[in-house]
């Protein structure tokens, strides 16, 4: 009897601990329950596998970018060998994040090839033209279809294409415009020669509004080494008609001349500004990208999952109703069929529920919709264990054994079946957790934890409570255990 009391206190202690944990460490809800966006990013490598170092490097660059974006409570983690998952809670727009994160942001400084001045001037002019056409087209799209203006744009585009001796192969006007823009940018970049200076030589980036107009510019701060390189480059082209281009991901964002006053020393001080007609938002995005450094490998966004916050709270309520009503019905069924034994199983199920939730907050397990269904199924497993035991106890009682002996041998004989069932389920959970996607992992985690706890609660908890109840003489009536009629 003493040992049983020890167990009872132990269970009460664990239960108190569980409730304490739940109050102090609230459950973490997944995005499908609280709303938000989830982006899956795939690293793209043409040949060979992505190495661990590369994945980590990309992870750290993206982490810096996300932090600099100022997204609160975001979560970035690696998935498998070549994927990353970014979670943005709440109403934050996934579009901005995807734009900022998706770019490689490889910054280069290049000097112009000698004798290409006229070519460059023409390309710069065409770039301006195509930019106007694109903004004109975007305006048009909002005001329904306007055939005259569309035709106008089409003709102007043809003029540009003729001038460049280029023809876009894409279908659709918008795609053609974008193609031509990319072509021009490439041609401009090709007129420049690479230098040693690149984004790696930066130690900081910032932004400020230009004094003369509303445009923004991005400020670059070089490292000592980078500052020297910048001095040498500017010295070499100062006073000539060669320009210095700042190129981001192969696209020239600014071309500038260096005045002859710098021909002796170059531009010193280790600072530079890029002023390429940036809007406030553009400047901020570029700043974030440069601060985080360039990505060692390009990434592609392969999955975007957005759930509005309102839908999230609806999901919680619905699943909560389902879980609670399911439990109540199961409880009624058990008490109806097993009387006192049913009551014991209801109490141990409630304890089971608390233990589960407490472990979720302790590990921590992020609760998602599939996670909740895993929990509900594991409750089924726990009930099954109780049924196995109670059926054995019933059999023993029918054979005319005493109550105490029936309980003891009931537990003993149901043991092996219960352990088998739990192990097979645990094996599938384990495999699912190892191999499954995030979605599947949530299910496997809650079901696996549930099965492990169920082994404890159904074998020791319910037995302890039952033994405790049977110490009262009035609760030892056999009729309280054997329902007289049963529909099966």
């Amino acid at each position: 009897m003493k040992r049983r009391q020890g167990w009872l206190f132990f269970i009460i202690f664990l239960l108190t601990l569980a409730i304490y944990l739940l109050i102090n460490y609230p459950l973490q809800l997944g995005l499908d329950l609280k709303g938000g966006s989830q982006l899956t990013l795939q690293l793209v490598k043409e040949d060979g596998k992505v190495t661990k170092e590369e994945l980590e490097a990309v992870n750290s660059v993206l982490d810096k970018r996300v932090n600099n974006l100022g997204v609160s409570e975001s979560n970035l983690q690696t998935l498998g060998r070549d994927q990353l998952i970014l979670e943005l809670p709440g109403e934050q727009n996934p579009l901005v994040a995807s734009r900022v994160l998706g770019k490689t942001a490889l910054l280069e400084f290049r000097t112009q090839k000698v004798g290409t001045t006229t070519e460059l001037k023409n390309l710069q002019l065409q770039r301006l033209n195509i930019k106007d056409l694109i903004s004109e087209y975007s305006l048009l799209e909002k005001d329904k279809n306007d055939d005259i203006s569309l035709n106008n744009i089409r003709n102007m585009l043809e003029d540009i294409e003729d001038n460049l001796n280029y023809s876009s192969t894409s279908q659709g006007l918008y795609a053609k415009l974008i193609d031509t823009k990319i072509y021009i940018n490439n041609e401009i970049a090709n007129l420049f020669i690479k230098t040693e200076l690149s984004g790696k030589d930066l130690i900081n980036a910032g932004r400020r509004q230009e004094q003369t107009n509303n445009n923004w510019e991005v400020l670059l701060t070089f490292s000592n080494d980078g500052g020297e390189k910048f001095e040498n480059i500017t010295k070499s082209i100062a006073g000539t008609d060669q320009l210095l281009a700042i190129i981001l991901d192969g696209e020239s964002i600014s071309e500038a001349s260096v005045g002859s006053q710098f021909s002796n020393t170059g531009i010193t001080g280790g600072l530079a500004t890029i002023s390429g007609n940036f809007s406030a938002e553009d400047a901020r995005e570029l700043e974030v990208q440069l601060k985080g450094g360039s990505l060692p490998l390009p990434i592609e966004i392969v999955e975007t999952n957005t759930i509005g916050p309102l839908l999230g709270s609806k999901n919680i309520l619905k699943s909560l109703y389902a879980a609670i009503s399911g439990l109540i019905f199961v409880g009624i069924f058990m008490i109806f069929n097993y009387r006192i034994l049913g009551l014991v199983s209801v109490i141990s199920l409630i304890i089971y529920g608390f233990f589960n939730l407490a472990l979720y907050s302790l590990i921590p397990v992020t609760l998602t919709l599939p996670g909740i269904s895993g929990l509900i199924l594991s409750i089924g497993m726990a009930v099954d264990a109780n049924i196995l035991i109670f059926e054995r106890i019933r059999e023993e009682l029918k054979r005319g054994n005493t109550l105490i002996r029936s309980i003891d041998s009931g537990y003993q004989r149901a043991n092996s079946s219960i352990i088998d069932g739990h192990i097979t389920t645990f094996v599938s959970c384990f495999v699912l957790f190892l191999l499954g996607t995030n979605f599947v992992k949530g299910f496997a985690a809650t079901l696996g934890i549930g099965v492990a706890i169920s082994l404890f609660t159904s074998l020791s908890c319910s037995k302890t409570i039952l033994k405790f109840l049977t110490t009262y003489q009035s609760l030892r009536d056999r009729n309280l255990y054997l329902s007289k009629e049963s529909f099966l």
Partner: protein
Amino acid sequence: MKLFNLNLIKNRKKVFSFSFVLILLSFIGILYSSFNTNYKRPINLGMDFIGGNELRIERICEKKCSDISPDKVVENLKMFSENKNIVNNIKLQLQNDYKLISIRTPYLKIEDSNKLINNIERIIGPLNFETKKSRLIGPKLGRKLLINCATSLLVSLFAISLYITIRFDRKYAFFALLALFHDLFIVFGIFSWLGIFLSIEVNSLFAVSLLTIAGYSVNDTVVIFDRIRENLKLKDKNYNETIQLSVNESFRRTAFTSITTLIPLLTLILFGSYSLFWFSISLSLGIIIGSYSSILLAPSFLLKD
């Protein structure tokens, strides 16, 4: 006292023919689906596995939402969009008294997806962006997920088989696994038919449900085989009768367990969110078929002529 007394020995042939018919129907469904449907696969794979874009959003309406036919919306969309490939393959539905719009398209970039919503808002009126739910899955990721799900399924089936073979002797293990594959095949077949008639698609949750069914089915069969083994050791009765007795002894347990597992699933079907609806259905089917196969089919294999 007992209302139920299953006579396995007498009904053995009936059980076998019943299972045979179920397997045959599933097989026909899978074949029909592979060759005669527009997706040409044994089962209708959902967006999870083939990639695409799924959007659900509610409209803001005063009192009642105006009724507008989905075809008309798509027709109007054609006027706005440049990309014909998207508009021609769009599937648009209006549910809940025209309040909820759900859209399926091939894979789109986020920008294009946002453009699409804006266009729809221009056609159909204000939308409540708080209720927006969107999923974009690239075709590459979809294939990866499919392979991933198939491997998880195979590896864990293998692990379960291994455990059973260690736990029982070879004959018992073989029949337990036969019953397990019987259950999984029939659930798969039912979903093939659902795909043919109701265009129900399977997603990664379906793979999860198959795995859960596998666990349950093996568990149920193991409990009964355990009882058979125990009784064969104890009693000096006729072999066939011992098996029948064991099944009847564990019948209440199997039935009760199925009922208590079906209750929460039923509440999930009735009150749970839509994303878990077909998951709960397939689990319920699996549990019903699993109980049948462990009570009737698996022990019938063990009977001797």
